[in-house]
Structures are given as C-alpha cells and as structure tokens.
C-alpha cells in the first residue's frame, strides 16, 4: 500500500527532511536535529505539520447524541468553539483511540459545510480515520440516529505552532486576537489570508495553537511562519516529557489495550453520561485499576525504551515501559509505562531491564516538566 502524503510533501523533498512512515503516512521525522527542534519549542517556537491526524465531522439533528454515546467525555458541556480531550472506548471500557472533540464555532467555516448550528469535528490519530468513520456510521444506523458523518482527513491540513513565542507570533499574522483564546478554545480566524480553525491546544507541554486549514492552502499557512520546522521525532520527545499518551505506543487497542483509569486519563471519563464502555468503566473506577501509568527516571546509565520490563529490585516483573528517551530538557533518561498499582507511588525504586541488565530507576509523575520548572 502506498503511503499517504502531507500537502507539504513537495516542500519536504526540497528541504531534504528525513521522512518516516507513521500510521500509513509519510511524514517528516526530523528537519535539522531532534534536539535542536525540541529546544526551539521549549525556549521559543516551533511548527509541526500534523496533517496525518484524522478529522471526522459530525452534524445533523442527532449529532450531539451520537458524539455523547461514542466518546467518554461530556459533549453537552461544550459551547460553540470549545473542545475537549476524550476517549473512544469499547464495551469493556478499553481505549480504541484518544481524540480531541471540537464543537465547531458558528460562522465562516474553514471548510464549507451546510452551516447548521451544532456540528462537531473530532481528531482521531493517524490512520484511524476509516475505522472511526465506520464506527460512527455503524452506530448511527444501529441506533437509528439522524446525523451525517464525514471523513474530512483529506480536506484539512493541520499544523501545531508550539512554544512560548506562539501567541505573539500568531497574533502578528492573524486577524482576531489569538491571545484571547483560552486553553481548549477554538475560533475561525484568518491566518496569512487563509480562513482556518485555530485552537489553543497542543501536544508538547508548551503554550501554543493547532491550526486546521484547507488542504489546498497548506503551503500558504506553513510558509507564513518563519520559525523552526519540527518533525515527529521532537513531537515525541516533547510529549514524553509532558506525560501525554501516544496511541499505538502507550496503549494499543490490538496489542496492549488499556482503560482510561489505568492510562491516567480518568479526567476525560464522565460516568454520569451514557457512552459505550461506561458500565465497565464504572466498575474499574470503583475497584481501582490493577496497573497505573507512571513516569520513570533512570538513575543508572541507559535509555528506557518501549517494551522493556519493569521489575522490583528483587527481579519480580511489575510492569512495562511504553515510551522512553533521553530527555533533551532534563538531560536525563526518562520514560513512561505501566506498573502494578502498589508500586505506582512517586519515589518508589524499581528496575528497568535493558539488554539483560537491571538498571535502577525511580517512579516519577508522568509530567516531568512541572517539577523541572
């Protein structure tokens, strides 16, 4: 199967960016160096092309009902222009994907729609668009709801502008004051002459915005920013430091299914709403999960990586590393993973098994930036 290409594919060829296959898309992993790109975002500003992310739009009279029953958070709390982090779970409460759900603002939309009031856009992970489209339309039909569901993945380019300089930089080239947007708030704005959906969201632990622009205008928006281009490599190191889950890595519906409570995202589950997986999750909530998502910091030399075992000092297996790197910000080897709940307390000393050697490590908060700052 051939890889799907970003609208900026031609520009990447010119710039000799290193590319990688991610979720069926050919995307830049590195423009200059992961470390350089990482520091740019922490210290000033970087821009990422995340056009590989999926976009599904849901409208019609029963749009709210359909969204509410297929996502774990409470969409009825969203005003136009609000967004929320949410889980898509199965009957057993296991995460199929994590997503951000936008209730689209009214008015001049980035990609033309028929203009009814309550319309949602949600952003599943790369390569999940067809599966999510099918999940939404199948349930709509099964429940007899009146909603239209459209896969807009190839209509939207998506960029993440991240770093402390993001508000001032974006304010300079957009109409409408992006500094007034609160976290998770979105608005249609003109960015370098292009109407785009701008939201104050991100995946780096820094202030910043995500910009959904029409596919054909991708080049115009991208080239309007004179800042460090960043690839998926830096996106990964930045999100690991901030403790954000990566679908397919920190949970994988096929190979390592997890529920939202063990994955540390119980805040996105609203048990007082009706959704697929709710009853199973109520039981997990009452009993507490068997394992918990934690941060790790290696005390011995080495780098924790996906799939390494976590053990007690005595050698008993108590968990698994799901993500790890040498942290560019902390200059220390850090990771994320799951351990049995009794070992999940911050400060617990554990071991990470690296190539047959037990390396001393400490359980940390998932977000290692707070402590650093």
């Amino acid at each position: 199967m051939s890889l799907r290409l970003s609208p900026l594919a031609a520009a990447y060829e010119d710039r000799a960016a290193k590319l990688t296959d991610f979720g069926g898309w050919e995307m830049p992993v590195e423009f200059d160096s992961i470390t350089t790109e990482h520091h740019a975002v922490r210290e000033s500003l970087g821009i990422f092309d995340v056009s590989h992310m999926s976009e599904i739009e849901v409208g019609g009279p029963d749009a709210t009902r359909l969204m509410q029953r297929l996502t774990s958070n409470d969409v009825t709390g969203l005003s136009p222009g609000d967004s929320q982090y949410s889980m898509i779970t199965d009957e057993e409460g296991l995460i199929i994907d994590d997503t951000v759900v936008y209730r689209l603002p009214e008015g001049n939309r980035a990609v033309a729609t028929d203009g009814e009031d309550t319309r949602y856009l949600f952003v599943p992970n790369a390569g999940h668009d067809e599966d999510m489209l099918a999940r939404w339309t199948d349930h709509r039909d099964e429940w007899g709801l009146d909603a239209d569901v459209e896969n807009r993945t190839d209509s939207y380019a998506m960029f993440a502008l991240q770093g402390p300089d993001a508000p001032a930089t974006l304010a300079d080239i957009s109409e409408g004051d992006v500094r007034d947007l609160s976290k998770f708030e979105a608005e249609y704005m003109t960015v370098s002459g292009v109407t785009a959906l701008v939201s104050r969201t991100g995946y780096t632990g820094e202030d910043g915005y995500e910009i959904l622009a029409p596919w054909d205008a991708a080049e115009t928006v991208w080239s309007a920013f004179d800042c460090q281009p960043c690839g998926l490599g830096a996106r990964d190191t930045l999100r690991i430091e901030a403790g954000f889950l990566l679908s397919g890595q920190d949970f994988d519906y096929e190979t390592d299914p997890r529920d939202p409570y063990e994955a540390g995202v119980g805040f996105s589950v609203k048990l007082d709403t009706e959704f697929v997986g709710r009853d199973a999750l109520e039981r997990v909530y009452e009993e507490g999960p068997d394992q918990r998502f934690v941060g790790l910091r290696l005390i011995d030399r080495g780098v924790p990586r996906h799939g390494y075992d976590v053990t007690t000092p005595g050698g008993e297996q108590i968990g698994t590393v799901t993500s790890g790197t040498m942290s560019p910000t902390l200059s220390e080897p850090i990771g994320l993973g799951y351990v049995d709940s009794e070992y999940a307390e911050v400060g617990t000393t554990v071991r990470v098994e690296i190539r047959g050697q037990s390396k001393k490590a400490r359980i940390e908060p998932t977000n290692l930036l707070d402590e650093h700052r």
Partner: protein
Amino acid sequence: MSFETPDELGYLESHEWARREDGTAQVGITDFAQDELGDVVFVELPDVGDELAAQAEFGVVESIKAVSDLYAPVGGEVVAVNEELFNTPELVNDDPYGEGWMLEIEFDDESDFDDLLAADEYVDQTE
C-alpha cells in the same frame, strides 16, 4: 547529501570503521551512520581487557530515535575505550573519525583488515 569517508580506513557494512595503527586498531562509526542515527545520546562500550572476536557485537549506540548494535571490525583485546563518550556522546555526531572514536583494539590477526571494505566499496553499499 555527501558524507566523509576517509580513504585510509577500513569499513564494515554495519557502518563501523577501523584505523590501523602500530599493532592496534582504533574503532568508531562512520559519518553516514551518525547522520542516519541523528543525535547520539548514549553509548555502551566494553571494558578495557575484554576480548572481542572480529565481527562480534561489542556495544550499543543509541540516538534519540534508535538503538543500534556495534560490531568489531577486527578481533583482539580492548586496550582503550573513549570514556569521554559517556558524558558527551554527541562527539560521535560532531567528529565521528576523531574525538568520537570508541575503542582501541590490540588486534590478534592482521588478516582481519583484509576482510574490511575499502572506502569506495563502503560508499557504494550506502547508496
């Protein structure tokens, strides 16, 4: 993009180089390899005194995004390791044929050098 591949060194397909000196070989990884790996963040090397067979695994180099095994171009006893790399692994990126060296091996059999690729042969197999 073009990479530096000095003529006087011998190479393995797995991207290590060997520089023959008086009875010893200095060993590291190539410019091409360091660029492929990206920022090197960790190097695991054997101890001085360890015996290595030619083509045997001797350690690991890790960048932010990848873990890669290291192979000995020639067999013999490890007589020096570059301990600078434990604190400044980025030397492998900055100067792969100089300050980024990894080992010195007192080689047992000089015919091991005959099995190494010449610079042009190595470059051909990276293209």
